[in-house]
C-alpha cells in the first residue's frame, strides 16, 4: 500500500525502552550501541542447568573471580555493536585489499630481499597459529562472559583474530610461498622457539576463569606481541628492505591499537569497581606477564638478534604504563 504521508511532527510517547530509561536515569534517546547491548542478557528464571557444566546457570556471574556491581559498566569505548563492528572492519579490509593489490601489481613481494623473506618465514608465519589459538580463547570468553557488553566484544575479537590468521596466510600466498606455511606450522608444533607461546595459549584453553583468559590472552600476550611484531619488527623490516611487510600487516597494527583501547577501558572499570578486583587483575597480570615475557623472548631474539631483549623490555615497559594508567598497581617484579 502506497500512502502519501505528509511530513508531520509527532510527539513520541517515550524516547526509549524502559530498561534503558531506568539505566540512564531519564527517558532520552539511546544510541544503537546502548540499545543493542544494555541489560538484554537473561539474568533470572533459567529453565535448566547446562549439561556440560551443571554447577552453573546458563549465564552465571560466578564463572569468574571478578565481581562487578554492574556488568554493563564494561562498555566498549568503540561502541561496537554488530553493525559498527563490521563497518569498521570492512573499512580496514578495504585498505588491506588495496595494499595486497599494490604489492602484487608492483611485484613487490617477488622483489623482496631474501633476508627479509627469511624473517617473514620464521617470525611472522607461525603467528597464524597463535591467532587461531587466540580465536579459541576469545570465543571461550564470548561463550561464558557475563553481560552482553563483554561477551559481544570478545566474540568480535575472536573473529578479528581469525581474520588476522587469514591475513597472515594471505601474506604467505602473496609471497607465493605455500611451502613456508607448512614449515611454519612444523616450527609452531616443534621448534623450541615457539613452544613457550604454544604452551601459553594451550594452557589458556583449559583455564576456566574467562576474565583471567581475557587478561592473559588479550591484555598481556597481545599487549606484548603485537607491538613487537607489527610495530617494531615491521618498521625494522621496512627500514632495511622497503615497505612491504608493514603494508601487508597494516590490519594487525591498526587493530592492535584499537583493541587496546577497548581492553584498557575494561580493565580500568573492573579495577575501579573494587579493591579486590584491582588486586586480582594485578595478580593475573603479574603471573601471566612473567610467563608471556619468557615465551616471547626467543621470538624477540629471532626478530632482533642481540637487541631482542632490550626491545622487549621497552615494550614491557609500555604495557606496564598502559596498565598502571588503567589503575592497576603492578609490583616492581611485575
Amino acid at each position, binding site marked *: *500500500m*502506497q500512502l502519501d*504521508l*505528509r*511530513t*508531520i511532527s*509527532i510527539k*513520541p*510517547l*517515550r524516547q*526509549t*525502552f*524502559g*530498561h534503558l530509561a531506568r539505566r540512564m536515569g531519564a527517558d532520552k534517546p539511546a544510541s544503537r550501541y546502548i540499545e*543493542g547491548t544494555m541489560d*538484554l542478557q*537473561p539474568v*533470572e*528464571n533459567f*529453565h*535448566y*542447568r*547446562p*549439561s*556440560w557444566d551443571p554447577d552453573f546457570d546458563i549465564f552465571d556471574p560466578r564463572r569468574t573471580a571478578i565481581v562487578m556491581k554492574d556488568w554493563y559498566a564494561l562498555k566498549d569505548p568503540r561502541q561496537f*555493536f*554488530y*553493525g559498527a563492528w*563490521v563497518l569498521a*572492519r*570492512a573499512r580496514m*579490509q578495504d585498505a588491506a*585489499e588495496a595494499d595486497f593489490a599494490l604489492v602484487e601489481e608492483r611485484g613487490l613481494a617477488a622483489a623482496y630481499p631474501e633476508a627479509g623473506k627469511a624473517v617473514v618465514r620464521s617470525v611472522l608465519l607461525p603467528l597464524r597459529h597463535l591467532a587461531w589459538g587466540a580465536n*579459541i580463547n576469545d*570465543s*571461550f570468553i*564470548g*561463550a*561464558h562472559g557475563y553481560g552482553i557488553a563483554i561477551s*559481544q566484544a570478545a*566474540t*568480535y575479537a*575472536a*573473529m*578479528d583474530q*581469525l581474520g588476522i*590468521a*587469514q591475513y597472515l*596466510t594471505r601474506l604467505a*600466498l602473496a609471497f*607465493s*610461498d*605455500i611451502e*613456508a*606455511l607448512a614449515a611454519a*606450522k612444523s616450527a609452531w608444533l616443534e621448534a623450541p622457539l615457539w613452544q613457550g607461546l604454544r604452551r601459553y595459549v*594451550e*594452557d589458556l*584453553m*583449559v583455564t576456566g576463569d574467562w576474565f583471567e583468559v581475557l587478561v592473559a590472552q588479550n591484555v598481556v600476550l597481545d599487549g606484548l606481541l603485537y607491538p613487537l611484531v607489527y610495530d617494531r619488527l615491521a618498521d625494522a623490516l621496512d627500514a632495511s628492505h622497503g615497505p612491504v611487510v608493514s603494508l601487508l600487516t597494516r590490519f594487525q597494527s591498526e587493530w592492535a591499537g584499537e583493541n587496546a583501547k577497548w581492553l584498557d577501558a575494561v580493565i580500568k572499570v573492573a579495577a575501579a569497581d573494587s579493591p579486590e578486583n584491582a588486586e586480582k587483575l594485578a595478580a593475573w597480570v603479574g603471573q601471566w606477564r612473567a610467563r608471556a615475557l619468557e615465551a616471547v623472548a626467543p621470538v624477540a631474539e629471532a626478530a632482533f638478534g642481540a637487541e631482542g631483549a632490550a626491545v622487549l623490555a621497552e615494550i614491557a615497559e609500555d604495557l606496564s604504563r598502559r596498565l598502571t594508567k588503567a589503575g592497576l598497581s603492578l609490583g616492581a617484579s611485575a
Partner: protein
Amino acid sequence: MDMKVDKKLGLKERYALMTRDLAWETTYQPMDKVFPQVTYEGIKIHDWNAWEDPFRLTMDAYWKYQAEKERKLYAILDAFNQNNGHLSVTDARYINVLKLFLGSTPPLELMAARGFTNVGRHMVGAGPRVACLMQAVDEYRHFQTQVHSISNYNKYYNGMNEFAHQQSRMWYLSDGKSFFDDAITAGPFEFMVAIGFAFEYVLTNILFVPFISGAAYNGDMAAMTVGFSAQSDEARHMTLGLECIKFMLEQDPDNLPIVQRWIDKWTWRGTRKLASVGMMMDYMLPKRIMSFKEAWEMYFEQNGAALFNDLARYGVKVPKCFVQTVAEKEHVTHQSWIGFYMKPDSTPFHTWIPEKDELDWLSEKYPNTFDKYYRPVLEHFDAQEKSGNRFNNKTAPMNCQVCISTIKFNDPDDPMKTLIRSKTYKGEKFHFCSLHCEEIFDAEPEKYIQAYISSHQVLQGNCAPEGVDTTAPDFEPGAHIAAYWRLDKAATGDFNGSEDQANFAAWRRQATSN
C-alpha cells in the same frame, strides 16, 4: 620463497589454508581437556577432516558483504523513522504483530548467538568451529537489528517498552525461552540439531517468511527490510545445519538413533513454538498472506517431506510428530488466539475479535474446523464484549512441563477435548500437552523437572516485584503479578478503545489531510 605457486589455488585448498590448516592437535594440554564437550552426548566422530565446509567465506569477504548489507539496512531504517513510516502500515492492529514477534524474537536471537559461540568454541574440527562462530556473530546481528527496528515503534506505541524485562518473566514468553534454554544446556551436537537443523532448516521458512511477507503486505518497510536482510544470512545457516546432520550420520552408524531422537524432539518443540506465528498469520495481520494451514502444507508437509526423503539414505525417518502436526494444523492457531483473547489482563499486546469479512476468510481457509468449532466461540465472545460483559479468564493456566505452553491444544482424536497427560515422577505430579512432550520428558526427566513454570511460581509467591516483602503476613501471591511483569495497563486488553488505536487514527489523519 623460491617455490612458484599456482596463483589459481583451488577455492577449496585456499579455504583449507585459511581455516583448518590453522588448527593443530594440542599437546601441552590433552585434546579431551581442551574440547571437553564433544564426547559425552555419545556422538562418535572419527575424522573431523571429513567435514565438508558448507560455505567458504573468509573474514575479509564476510566483513565486506555484511557491511554492505548493514549500510543498506540502517539507511532504510533511518529513512523509515524520519518519515513516520509507522503511519503507512495497514492499520494499527498490525503493530501487535511486532509486539508479539519482535518482542519475543530478539532475546531468542541472542540465545542463538550465545549458543553458536559455545559450539564454535567447543567443536574440535576447524571447519565447523569457523562456520558456527560466523553464525554466532550473524545472530548478534539479527538480535540487534530487530531491537533497532522496534525501537522506533516503541516510541509511539505501547507494549514494547519492557520486552527486555519481560523476556524471563512473562508467562507466554517462557515457551520460547525454554526452547532455547533447552538447546543451549544440551551438548554441542544436540544444539546443532535443535537450532542448526530443526530450527534453521526445517522450520525457518515458516517462522520468517510469513513474518517478512506479512510486513511487506502490511506496509512495514522497516520490519520487512530487517527480515529480508536476516534471511540472506539464513541461507548460510541452513547449509550449516544440514551439513552437521550429514556429518554426524556419515561418521558412525551408532549416531543415527541419537540424531533421530533429537530430530523427533526438536521438530516437535519447534512446532509448538510456531503456534503463535500461525496465530499471527491467521488473526493479527490486517492484510493476510496465506493461512497458517497453507503455509504448513507448503513449507512443512511438502518441503519437509522432500528434505526427509533426501535424508532417508542415511536412515533418517520423518519426525515422529509429523502426523500429529498435520492433524493439528487446522486447530492450533484458533486455540492460541482464543487463549490469548481470554486473558486480557496478561499480555502487552492487544487482542480483538476478527471483523465479519475476516471471519469469512477463516471459514473459507479452514472449512473443516472453523465454522464447526471456533467461529461460534468467537461470535459468542463478540456478543458478550458488545453487551459489556467481556470474557476474562482469571484462573491460573496449566502448563506443559516440557514445552511450557499453556495446555489448550486438543486431543488429536477429539477436537472438543483438551489433551492433558499427567504422570508422577519421584512423588511429584507433572502435566504434558501431548504424547510427544511426555516422551521428551521420559528421556531426560532430571532435566525437565527443572523447568520454570510461571503459573507455579506465582502460586509459590515467587513473582513479586522488587521491593515487595513476600514474608509479610498480608502478602498475597499473584496480587503483584502485573508489577512483576512491568505490564503497562495501556498495552493490555482490547484493541478497540486502546490508546494505540486512537493515536494511530489521529496521527494518520494529520499526515494524510491537506
